[in-house]
């Protein structure tokens, strides 16, 4: 009996007890590193990194755990940035309410886009999300409240709960770190819930999930909205960090970027996208000062990943000899 239980729990988490311990150790180290990081790195850079990491993990919820490739996630990231920026600047609400507005807005957009997109599968799903995202881009270009090409500028960071002044960089960093951790815990809870299990079954074999009586469309829509809301959490936070919201965040390039981060880090791994995001953001920062355009590098990395590196960094690690000795397994 206990053997059966053990197998089930292994199957659920996809790793052995050794791996769980290693994992916990790594998480602990990672958390400590994140807490002391602002002593060593430029805090704005770190905050940007955390926002994109959360964005990529939210995206991976859909691609990695449901098997749906969305080419329109910039809508939720950039849309939430606009909503949060508008709420904080025009309605003068506190930052946490502002971010909540962003999350709810992104979830609503996710509900609409998902409603249309889940009517088709695979490649068509990708194209529909891309087209709808482009439509939202044009909307943002013309709408009054987004201020078109200028974007929403000088967004106040305000006081968290009316108490903590977020204009102080250190406070802001720990606030962003908190948001990031909350987001990650939500994602972790979500994919290990019964709902998440059903999503994985849809990814593995949609027909069988249907024949088992699951309303697949509803689960897909649920995952889509969840992913959109979390992407919105990242986008809204980013608007507060940089104190502006612009068209860059809703463009198709942004949707492509988040795909690259996830692919590079490891599709279907919980922490892979964090590494992917870290690498891409670092690369962009590094190249920002040179004349060489980032797009060329991004494009080449994309092609190389697809051709020879489909598991991504973390996926390769899990599949490597060291990873397997530590008890991880990678099943893609």
């Amino acid at each position, binding site marked *: 009996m206990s053997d059966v239980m053990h197998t089930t729990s292994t199957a659920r988490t996809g790793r052995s007890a050794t791996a769980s311990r290693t994992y916990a150790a790594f998480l602990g180290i990672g958390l400590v590193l994140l807490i002391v990081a602002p002593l060593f790195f430029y805090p704005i850079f770190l905050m940007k990194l955390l926002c994109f990491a959360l964005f990529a993990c939210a995206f991976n919820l859909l691609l990695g755990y449901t098997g749906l490739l969305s080419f329109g996630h910039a809508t939720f990231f950039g849309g939430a940035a606009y909503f949060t920026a508008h709420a904080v600047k025009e309605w003068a609400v506190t930052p946490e309410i502002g971010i909540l507005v962003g999350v709810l807005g992104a979830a609503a957009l996710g509900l609409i886009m998902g409603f*249309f997109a889940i009517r088709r599968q695979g490649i068509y799903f*990708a194209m529909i999300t*891309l087209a709808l995202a482009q439509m939202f881009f044009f909307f943002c270009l013309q709408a009054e409240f987004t201020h078109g090409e200028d974007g929403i500028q000088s967004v106040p960071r305000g006081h968290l709960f009316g108490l903590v002044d977020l204009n102080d960089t250190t406070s802001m960093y720990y606030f962003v770190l908190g948001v990031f951790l909350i987001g990650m815990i939500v994602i972790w809870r979500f994919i290990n819930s019964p709902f998440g299990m059903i999503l994985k079954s849809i990814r593995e074999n949609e027909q069988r999930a249907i024949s088992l009586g699951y309303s697949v469309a509803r689960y897909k829509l649920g995952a889509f909205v969840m992913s959109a809301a979390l992407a919105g959490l990242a986008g809204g936070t980013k608007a507060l960090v940089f104190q502006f919201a612009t068209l860059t965040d809703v463009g198709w390039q942004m949707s*492509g970027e988040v*795909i690259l981060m996830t692919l590079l880090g490891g599709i279907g791994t919980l922490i892979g996208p964090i590494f992917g995001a870290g690498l891409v953001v670092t690369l962009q920062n590094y190249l920002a000062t040179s004349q060489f355009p980032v797009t060329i590098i*991004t494009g*080449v990395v994309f092609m190389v990943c697809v051709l020879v590196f489909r598991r991504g960094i973390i996926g390769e690690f899990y599949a490597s000899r060291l990873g397997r000795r530590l008890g991880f397994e990678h099943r893609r």
Partner: protein
Amino acid sequence: MTMIFGIPLQAFMGQLLIGLINGSFYALLSLGLAVIFGLLRVINFAHGAQYMLGAFVAMLMLQYFGINYWFALLLAPIVVGLFGAVIERLLLSRLYKLDHLYGLLFTFGLALTIEGTFRYLYGSSGQPYAPPPQLTGATNLGFMFLPNYRGWVVVASLFVCIGTWLLIEKTKLGAYLRAATENPTLVQAFGVNVPMLLTLTYALGAGLAAFAGVLAAPVYQVSPLMGSNIIIVVFAVVVVGGMGSIMGAIITGYILGIAEGLTKVFYPEASSIVIFVIMAIVLLIRPAGLFGRDA
């Protein structure tokens, strides 16, 4: 002045013509996408980049070798088609056994690389490309002036679209293509070189995109960004049409181009999104697309 639906006839016809021109490009590009998708099961995200390449090759040929428009219209598709063939043979062909999404991601990376390279070399701003001297000027149709070059674009694209359709539906090569779409293994067992057929198809699709690019060069400016601006709209066109039928892709391209032009007359603010709205409506009513066969 003659009025139609409360709009001056001239403005109405002018926008209709612009719609028809855009429709010509949508039709050519969605045709190429449909041909490639039909056989390779790859959505060619680099289609926009190949369209842009066509325009650039034409412009550079003129600049460096003095090759005129008419030769460029013939040579640029061949150059870009060869480039496509090399890419397919060396890289893309490795992805066929995987999930089709990888093909989309690979061509997306390819599109970024090509676009980034040209932006690096030539900057983001557009460069003019003069229409051939035979087609300058305009013809008075009585109710409006038709710029000759624009008339040529519509005729040429119709001609090429119908030609491609005939090639696929009525020739022996086309029969092989269609057979390989249905069952590649069986066709290969009959002694047809299917991998070669795949390469040819990709080259044909890339060549069609380049042809559209050369046609577009005198209408729009030659700019590294011209491809990514149009490709997303073409994706929406393809979703509306459904990729099951070649003729479907062509007809949908023209219809949506015209719909976009007419929207510009009646409600200009919505003209940039009307195709996406139509796509959403079609998805509600007929998820498989207007001409789609698959569910």
